[in-house]
């Protein structure tokens, strides 16, 4: 592995991963709406069309089901398609293709055909976007056996996880936190760089409470943790990174140390991943539990338009409050 690094934003790391993997493996194909000449509406694929040509960076008609359905055919044939869905809120026409076909092609053919594709989509709120541009519906895909679901929170992780997703033999839904596409830079290894799927990262060690989160919520959670540290509450912040399969070992190990837990996600509370993580802790570490497990989440409402999204998204204040409630439980 190269020791050189580049200082990249998260969206630049997406592009760097795509470029590196396309250079490494000529079967890797990028396709989607506006990914070619326009370089993607967030510029995630900028320059790829010029470097790799329109056979490998394909501007498609406006047809999500067609984009993912065609990707499934390409993957079954032996290519490694990386279809982009422009916003997660527009993924639903492709939902049937993803859950009915991509997720179970291996099962249905006992491994004769596989579906090594990566569906990329920016997800989440906080950028004053129009309606349907702020959804965070990772739980739909986590619920589907046969899919892997990844959400990075840093540029270096983005590159490493996306590269692993592209090399993975199974279909991966790769959700990108667009709120922090350009929020900060980080040194990212140049050239070949992978991070294994299925491994959470401990972002901050602490002994009082475990806080589980991912993607764009990692930053406000870290901010809340630092604020609470000033009050003497030490949070252990776990960035799950891969939501399917979950890193049960890291989740449980932390809880056995702290005995208290809070899950932070921007998706609606009911049916969100917070419930799954709570269940894992109940199954594996009940006797360590010292307080009810808290959830700080989006509300069970449609994502509001931007005049109200600051109330909808968990803020450091809400996260701090939720953590304090769990820590103060006697």
């Amino acid at each position: 592995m190269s020791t050189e690094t580049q200082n990249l934003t998260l969206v630049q790391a997406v592009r760097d991963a795509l470029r590196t993997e396309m250079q490494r493996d000529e079967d890797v194909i990028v396709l989607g709406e506006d990914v070619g000449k326009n370089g993607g509406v967030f510029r995630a694929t900028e320059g790829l069309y010029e470097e790799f040509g329109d056979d490998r960076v394909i501007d498609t008609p406006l047809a999500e089901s067609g984009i993912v359905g065609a990707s499934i055919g390409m993957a079954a044939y032996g290519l490694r398609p990386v279809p982009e869905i422009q916003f997660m809120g527009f993924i639903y026409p492709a939902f049937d293709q993803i859950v009915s076909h991509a997720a179970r092609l291996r099962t249905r053919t006992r491994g004769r055909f596989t579906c090594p594709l990566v569906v990329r989509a920016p997800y989440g709120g906080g950028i004053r976007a129009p309606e349907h541009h702020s959804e965070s519906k990772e739980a739909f895909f986590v619920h589907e056996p046969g899919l892997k679901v990844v959400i990075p929170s840093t540029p270096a992780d983005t590159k490493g996880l996306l590269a692993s997703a592209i090399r993975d033999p199974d279909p991966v839904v790769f959700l990108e936190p667009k709120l922090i596409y350009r929020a900060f830079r980080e040194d990212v290894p140049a050239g070949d760089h992978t991070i294994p799927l299925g491994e959470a990262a401990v972002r901050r060690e602490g002994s009082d409470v475990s806080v589980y989160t991912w993607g764009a919520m990692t930053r406000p959670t870290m901010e809340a943790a630092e604020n609470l540290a000033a009050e003497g509450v030490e949070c252990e912040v776990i960035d799950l990174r891969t939501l399917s399969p979950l890193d049960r070992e890291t989740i449980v190990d932390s809880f056995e140390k702290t005995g208290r837990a809070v899950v932070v996600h921007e998706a609606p509370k009911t049916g969100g991943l917070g419930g799954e993580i709570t269940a894992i802790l109940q199954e594996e570490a009940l006797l360590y539990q010292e307080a009810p497990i808290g959830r700080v989440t989006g509300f069970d409402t449609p994502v509001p338009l931007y005049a109200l999204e600051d109330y909808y998204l968990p803020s450091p204040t809400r996260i701090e409050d939720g953590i304090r409630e769990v820590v103060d439980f006697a």
Partner: protein
Amino acid sequence: MGARVRDHDEVVVVSVFDRAPDDRVQVLDVDGQLVGDVPDLSDAELVDLYRHLRLARHFDERAVNLQRQGRMGTYPPLAGQEAAQVGSAFALADGDWIAPSYREHAAVHVHGLDLSDILLYWMGHGAGGWDTDANVLPAAVPIATQIPHTTGLALASKLREDEAVACAYFGDGATSEGDFHEGLNVAGVFDVPAVFVCNNNGWAISVPRERQTASSTLAGKAAAYGIDGVQVDGMDPLATYAVTRAAVAKARDPGDRPRPTLIEAVQYRFGAHTTADDPSVYRDEDEVAAWRQRDPIPRLERFLRETGRLDDEMVDDIEASVREQVTEAIDRAERTPRPGPEAMFADVYAAPSTELRAQRDHLNRLRDRHGDDAFLKE
């Protein structure tokens, strides 16, 4: 549904539907000269049509500026596309329905939506900007999803034996989506009173019309569904009015023809897809300049002036009144208080669940404890 017996020798209910899909209907040429029949609008209505084009253009310019000044969120401009929107909406009766995409500010205003309510939507107020009795569905932001809704509205009208016609608006990109196919197919099968207006502006963000489909026209796709398809100069307000009026009349009283019509209104978006888009990355300025020669406003203005329906004084009055109307709409929108977080929890269900009420109450306790400033980033 039985097969429709049609005798072309006998029936010429609306001749415009007998044209080839690429035989584009035009009433005014690019210089505003009459090349077709003037539709059945009074002089006052023709001047009102012109005023609505000017209003739409000015509204659009101000809206783009509001976004640039940080007074509004991302906004999809319509400049260049006024004629197809205003002309077609003029052909609808009050009780007819519109299922718009996100760019149809002019069409929905003609049909009864207040300009300030349209602005409030783009200012992020959501349902706060939804205050109308007009039969207009909320703008569909996902692509083509409103097309099957239109079929359903029209089917309901038919089942109830009502007069109402349903009109969908969508872009050229939408014709690539499955919902376009399904919506038109069902409309054809059940022969519903629907008009499908495709505002073909040449570009779906960066993807040109030629890349959406190998079909030579979009109007020609109607044949696959057994419905009528017609192409019209979408920058000719009189042609779009005339064609839509014929389609609406046929939807209500089809004679031997199918009720549904697909109208391909060929036009151009002068500006960006939205204020978040930079069209210089994917299209040439020469192309934009060429289409600007077809601008609907000077075309209609020249026709109205040369036929004695409009003079300098009237144009000045229209200009002043349009400016005043848009300024008032902006003032009203900006004076509207930002919705409180209760609005987020309202209208999710007819009756909120226990859990939803608990979440609302919890947020209110947090607001009491920490103050609203702790939540608002701005």
